[in-house]
């Protein structure tokens, strides 16, 4: 299937400057660097591009707000922290298509009027960091960034920053803290980075995949881009499949493709011929879906209607004979460990949820313990500086709804009914 980012399938090697140019690379930059920045923002808005980091905020709107903020200077931050367990799309893009990413960075910076772009890249991604570093050198030599880009009079500096490898370090404002030389602790919002961001100045923080879509949109035009996907969710998205399927990897699919296609045609179905017990479309923080939802379109609205979410596209499968209590215990403990600890509500919630599931797993406490999950989650709803506090809820509550027998068996016997 033809893609937008991977027109000929997932590239196997790194694409250098010459190869990128041979297929139209940097043409969008050459064409739009002399047009008005507002025109780029309008094209991105008309194309309906939404952030691919998980939140799905409209990119054109984010750029408009940043450009419209009265304070100067402005900054663009490429968020390549990619700390979502199982996500590898940004790594693949940075490693194999570094110029596609960098062209998006330069165009984004021009659109918002940024003087500098920071490329925030997961410190564990050594190959991606090298690929981007090399591509930056090539692109600078070619005059694509630096002073007076392609004779336009627009200057842009670009700097790499290593992102610590922990979950909250991928949160937008935690990234800003790291770039400013501090530990990755999310900031209280509002104010949002578009008005008060890096060094207190207007900043657009954009995910790697989001930026990779920019040059293709400008070359194809919004209508060309909208040939992919659905009217509400134009374009494609890169999904990550892991070891629970026969063919793990990243797959670019148009929004609206049935979940079944990703799992069966792309992933080759569950490993070892297992039957699917549940699907988590946005691991680890989305609600589980039962197998009868396999034909749900991979599209945010459809996923919401089905009771889950799409996040950044890490699709995880739970096979038959897997205990859901053990599954959600692992998830709850992950969020307990990854909570940065600065918000009391998050600290209490994540610790308490882990403790409660541990009690269920060990068969301690009666049925009243099951009623506490909803109360703890409801009490802490909307609290905390970042969204981590909202993440354990969907997996836990959906597991309780879909698999009450697993919880009841654990409470009754302290043993896993699946084993």
């Amino acid at each position, binding site marked *: 299937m033809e893609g937008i980012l991977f027109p000929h399938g997932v590239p196997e090697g790194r694409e250098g400057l010459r190869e990128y140019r041979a297929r139209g690379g940097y043409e969008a930059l050459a064409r739009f660097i002399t047009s008005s920045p507002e025109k780029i923002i309008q094209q991105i808005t008309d194309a309906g591009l939404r952030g691919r980091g998980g939140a799905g905020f409209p990119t054109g709107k984010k750029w408009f707000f940043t450009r419209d903020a009265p304070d100067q200077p402005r900054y663009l931050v490429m968020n390549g922290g990619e700390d979502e367990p199982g996500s590898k799309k940004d790594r693949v893009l940075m490693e194999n298509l570094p110029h596609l990413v960098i062209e998006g960075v330069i165009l984004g910076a021009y659109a918002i009027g940024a003087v500098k772009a920071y490329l925030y890249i997961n410190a564990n991604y050594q190959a991606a960091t090298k690929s981007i570093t090399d591509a930056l050198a090539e692109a600078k030599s070619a005059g694509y960034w630096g002073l007076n880009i392609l004779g336009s009079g627009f200057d842009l500096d670009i700097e790499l920053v290593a992102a610590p490898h922990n979950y909250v370090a991928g949160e937008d404002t935690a990234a800003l803290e790291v770039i400013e030389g501090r530990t990755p602790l999310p900031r209280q919002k509002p104010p949002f980075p578009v008005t008060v961001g890096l060094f207190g100045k207007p900043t657009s923080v954009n995910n790697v995949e989001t930026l990779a879509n920019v040059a293709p949109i400008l070359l194809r035009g919004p209508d060309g881009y909208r040939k992919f996907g659905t009217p509400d969710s134009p374009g494609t998205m890169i999904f990550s499949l892991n070891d629970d399927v026969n063919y793990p990897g990243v797959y670019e699919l148009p929004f609206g493709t049935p979940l079944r296609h990703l799992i069966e045609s792309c992933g080759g179905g569950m490993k070892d011929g297992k039957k699917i017990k549940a699907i988590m479309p946005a691991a680890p923080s989305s609600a589980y879906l039962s197998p009868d939802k396999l034909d749900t379109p991979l599209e945010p609205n459809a996923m919401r209607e089905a009771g889950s979410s799409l996040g950044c596209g890490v699709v995880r499968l739970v096979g038959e004979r897997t205990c859901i209590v053990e599954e959600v215990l692992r998830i709850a403990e992950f969020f307990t460990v990854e909570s940065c*600890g600065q918000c*009391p*509500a998050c*600290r*209490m*919630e994540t*610790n*308490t949820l882990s*403790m*409660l599931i541990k*009690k269920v797993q060990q068969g*301690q*406490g*009666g049925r*009243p*313990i099951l009623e*506490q999950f909803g*109360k*703890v989650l409801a*009490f*802490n709803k909307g609290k905390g500086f970042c969204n981590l506090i909202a993440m354990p809820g969907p997996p836990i509550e959906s597991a309780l709804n879909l698999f009450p027998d697993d919880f009841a068996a654990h409470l009754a016997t302290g043993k896993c009914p699946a084993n």
Partner: protein
Amino acid sequence: MRICLVCQNIDCKSRGSEQLMREFQKRVAARGLTDVEVKPYMCFGACQEGPNIVLYPEKNWYAKVKVEDLDEITDHLAGGPHVQRLDTIDSSLKELIYQLLDTGIL
């Protein structure tokens, strides 16, 4: 057994909750309150009011406790009056934590 839970998360530790718990254990022992156990609790979600001490099953919650307050709290455990000035926590949070404790999670 009656239980006194002293929060021991990083925030409350920075406010002296480890020393507070040790002192509390000594005073409870010195008063001969053999039916009372003073033990740590991970987090009540009231760090800004910490260190916190929750008495259970009495369901009394004392916040911003200092070592100087421990004699009064120990008196309360021994049948003395409730220490009203340390009872400042929001009732909805109290209710949530008391319900959790009622499920037998300790």
